[in-house]
């Protein structure tokens, strides 16, 4: 096997290294050290500025930078082409991506093209000391179980890592490394899918992923009108609202507020789960919260098995009093 080293596929967000990239550089450094191999990173964008140097400060030995106006925003065909070509040249043993909009699309495509072995949405990555193989741990059956996966011979061994699972790498600006421009132009004839538009759907108030308090509602809320009570409580607490899939499906909350395995992963200080059962696919998105509070009329609902505090009652009898009391306490 000629493949060697760990390659992190980085992401640039608003001119900076994306937080997931800094997390990946930390994990990648550890894996590379255990293997006694190099850690490299790939950055793609229209301008990568000093970010190559920054990736070195976060642990990379080499940073490949691909600059092209076609790489300005994520474009599946263009990114796949550049990353696949680089992999064929560098032949990494391990390739890590974030479980993000970019990684979720790019990793499976790259894997299809390179014939590697890919584990998506990983919660842990390690090197087996005996075999030196990458062991990827990922949730299966909606999080009811965890599976360990390996690739015996397919290369690269690929994984996407869930956000905020590991701490960010430490920055050390005295670290030395090499920034290497990626040669070659993108073949425009291979760009089959055209990006016509990008629409941001702004939601009022605090961003869900950044909120310190999230008040989430489920099917038991009953109507879009009742969801207003959640917004009210969230406003008083300086937080925002989340929702389960059925609540989004019914249009009570915008889809962008879905929390869970197939929605957003949040880790606020306080997660108030109202009239939602605590399905494993939902709590996958909020288990990182410091305190989980459950309000549910069914004392056997699964949400009570992960909550720190709970009230067993109809939410309509609880929310107004809860909001009023918080208002009083927080203004005091």
């Amino acid at each position, binding site marked *: 096997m000629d493949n060697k080293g760990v390659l992190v596929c980085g992401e640039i967000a608003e001119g900076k290294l994306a937080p997931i990239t800094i997390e990946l550089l930390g994990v990648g450094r550890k894996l590379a050290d255990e293997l006694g191999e190099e850690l490299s990173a790939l950055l793609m964008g229209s301008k990568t500025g000093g970010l190559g140097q920054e990736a070195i400060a976060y642990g990379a030995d080499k940073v490949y930078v691909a600059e092209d106006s076609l790489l300005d925003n994520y474009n*599946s*065909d263009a990114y796949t082409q550049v990353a696949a070509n680089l992999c064929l040249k560098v032949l990494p043993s391990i390739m890590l991506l974030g479980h*993000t*909009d970019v990684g*979720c699309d790019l*990793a*499976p*495509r790259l*894997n*299809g093209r390179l014939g*590697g*072995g*890919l584990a*998506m*949405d990983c919660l842990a990555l390690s090197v087996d000391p005996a075999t030196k193989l990458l*062991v990827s741990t990922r949730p*299966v*059956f*909606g999080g009811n*179980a*965890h*599976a*360990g*996966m*390996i*690739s015996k011979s*397919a290369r690269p061994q690929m994984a996407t890592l869930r956000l905020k699972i590991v701490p960010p790498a430490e920055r050390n600006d005295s670290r030395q490394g090499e920034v290497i421009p990626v040669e070659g132009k993108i073949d425009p004839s291979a760009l*089959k*899918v055209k*990006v*016509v538009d*990008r*629409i*941001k*759907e702004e939601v009022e108030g605090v961003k869900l992923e950044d909120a310190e*308090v999230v008040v989430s509602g489920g099917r038991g809320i009953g109507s879009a009108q009742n969801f207003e009570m959640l917004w009210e409580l969230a406003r008083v607490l300086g937080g925002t609202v989340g929702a389960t899939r059925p609540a989004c*499906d019914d249009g009570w909350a915008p*889809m962008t507020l879905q929390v869970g395995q*197939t929605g957003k992963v949040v880790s606020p*200080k*306080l997660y108030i789960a109202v009239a939602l059962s605590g*399905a494993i*696919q939902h709590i996958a998105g909020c288990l990182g919260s410091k305190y*989980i509070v459950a309000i549910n009329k069914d004392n056997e609902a*699964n949400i*009570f*098995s992960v909550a*720190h*505090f*709970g*009230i067993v009652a*109809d939410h309509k*009898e*609880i*929310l*107004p*009093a809860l909001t009023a*009391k*918080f208002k009083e*306490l927080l203004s005091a």
Partner: protein
Amino acid sequence: MNIIVCVKQVLDPEIPPAKFKIDPEAKQVIPPPGVPPVISLFDERAVEAACRLKDKQGGTITVISLGPEKASEVVKHAIAMGADEGYVLQDEAFENLDSFGIAYVLGKAIQKIGGYDLVLCGRQSADWGNSQVGSILAEILGIPVITLAGDIEAVDKKLRVKRIVRDGYEVLEAPMPSLVTVSNEIGLPRLPAGVRIMIAARKQVPVWKAQDIGAESSQLDKANAHTEVTSLSVPTRKTECEIVTGDTPGQAAENLAAKLAELL
């Protein structure tokens, strides 16, 4: 417009966690007795997306499912929703394949069916959720792929797809044929009703074996698997939940607020 939809039959993902049991030795899940398997959530939405396109454009929908013979149930469910034809891909050699193996078999069946404008898959399966068969399949078929669709339209012989991203969506345009993976944002699937249920019940669902689709045994050899599951475990979570009470629900709410205000 001719659409092929790949659907999978899975253990009902909404069973209560207490009923979820595994065999860690075999690295398999033990299906709870009396709980019938279902069509994988996102695959059902892919069928819905296909039905909406057919409602507008006309054409045919063909459904394929790799799985046991019993997977004809989910094929029939798709036919009851509006699909026209369906096949089950079942062979001993198809059991326990990894994503590449599955994509290879689906690709062979799709090539046999031929004449398609669009291939649809769910964004991920509701059981193992490997989230990559669609993209590998597109690579095998040599057609463009768009993942995580929240809406699909056909305009002027092109596909217009809304791709869901964290803070909104992208509008993408792809030629035909292409492959699209469907996310739940597409909306709720229709409930099969009336005459469609009768049609589905009477429909023959042929079973295709490896030789029927020309799948080569070297491609199905487990020794060449790209990935392997080496362990399966159920994570333990232990949280003590303090139930907050009061003389009235309102009182309980106030007590809870007081406790939380101290922690924040």
